[in-house]
């Protein structure tokens, strides 16, 4: 039985814009104490999609080689983001630069509306999503856990919609399972929860809502042992996915004995 469920889980591979991916866990490459730890954590996570940011080359520090020095584009799928952008125009500019790097047409679109919470600017997000989709980008839009915005992003042509579990880098876990479930139930494109997961149980509970995947960064990078946490997250995402497919038992307010009530001694 367990084998059947596992097999059916494997068959339902994550597919975004027609491209199949081997893992439902996506990981970021920021905030690691060193690049060696990052590389080992990426490996331990089993993730295929790995996010990167677009920034100016630091012309004064020669020792900084950029991420391509550490990430093998033949084994990892490099998903560039527009992190740090506060307007649609800015995000579009960063996305075009990212595409020019020559790896793929996918972009993790972020348009931030507030420096303290890093919550998305939904107007800017929608405008940028429309522009980039029209230019042939496969847009994966980081958004809040709002159904209406998620639906509008899908209408705008997004290849995936990425609602947050809680604010970026907060590690507060899945704050509103209901809204995430609602979004998943209403969208045809993949729903990837992005940001807020703090530990393995958060990842598992998130996957149990039926979403297609999770993207996380700080939970690995800032764990005491990033490589061990990466493995835990890989297992949690898989466990949560399997549990979702397996279908949980109904919740009851009363106890029901697991052992027979008959056959008790006098």
């Amino acid at each position: 039985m367990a084998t059947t469920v596992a097999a059916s889980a494997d068959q339902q591979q994550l597919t975004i814009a027609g491209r199949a991916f081997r893992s439902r866990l996506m990981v970021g490459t920021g905030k690691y104490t060193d690049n060696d730890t990052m590389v080992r954590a990426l490996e331990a996570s089993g993730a295929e999609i790995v996010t990167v940011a677009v920034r100016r080359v630091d012309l004064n520090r020669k020792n900084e080689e950029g991420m391509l020095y550490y990430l093998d584009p033949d084994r990892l799928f490099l998903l560039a983001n527009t992190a740090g952008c506060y307007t649609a125009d800015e995000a579009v500019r960063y996305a075009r630069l990212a595409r020019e790097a020559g790896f793929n047409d996918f972009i993790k679109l972020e348009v931030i509306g507030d420096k303290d919470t890093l919550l998305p600017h939904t107007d800017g997000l929608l405008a940028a999503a429309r522009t980039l989709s029209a230019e042939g980008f496969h847009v994966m839009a980081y958004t809040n856990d709002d159904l209406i915005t998620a639906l509008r992003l899908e209408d705008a042509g997004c290849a995936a919609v990425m609602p947050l579990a809680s604010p970026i880098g907060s590690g507060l876990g899945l704050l509103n399972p209901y809204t995430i479930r609602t979004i998943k139930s209403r969208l045809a494109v993949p729903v990837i929860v992005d940001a807020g997961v703090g530990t393995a149980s958060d990842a598992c509970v998130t996957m149990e809502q039926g979403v297609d995947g999770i993207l996380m960064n700080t939970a690995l990078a800032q764990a005491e042992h990033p490589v061990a946490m990466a493995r835990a997250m890989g297992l949690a995402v898989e466990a949560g996915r399997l549990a979702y497919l397996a279908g949980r038992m109904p919740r009851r307010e009363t106890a029901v004995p697991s052992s027979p009530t008959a056959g008790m001694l006098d």
Partner: protein
Amino acid sequence: MNAWHKPRMAPHPPTRMMQSSITIVVNGEPRDIERDASLLDLLRRLELDPRLVVVEHNQQIVRRPALAGTALAAGDQIELVHFVGGG
């Protein structure tokens, strides 16, 4: 910055570099480079591998095959970007 806004005469008194070099802005910082240099020449001066850098020239992306054929002019704004760690 539009081409017609560039002064035909140097705004400052001529310097010894005047004849042979121009000043451009690279990643927000002024930088001198020889007159007639191309974008590819600029990358070579900076010891940057063109395969690992994306070049924006006055807000227009210049693809790798066009780098050698794109000449620099005084006042040009160049952005050189690459991938760094991010979430």
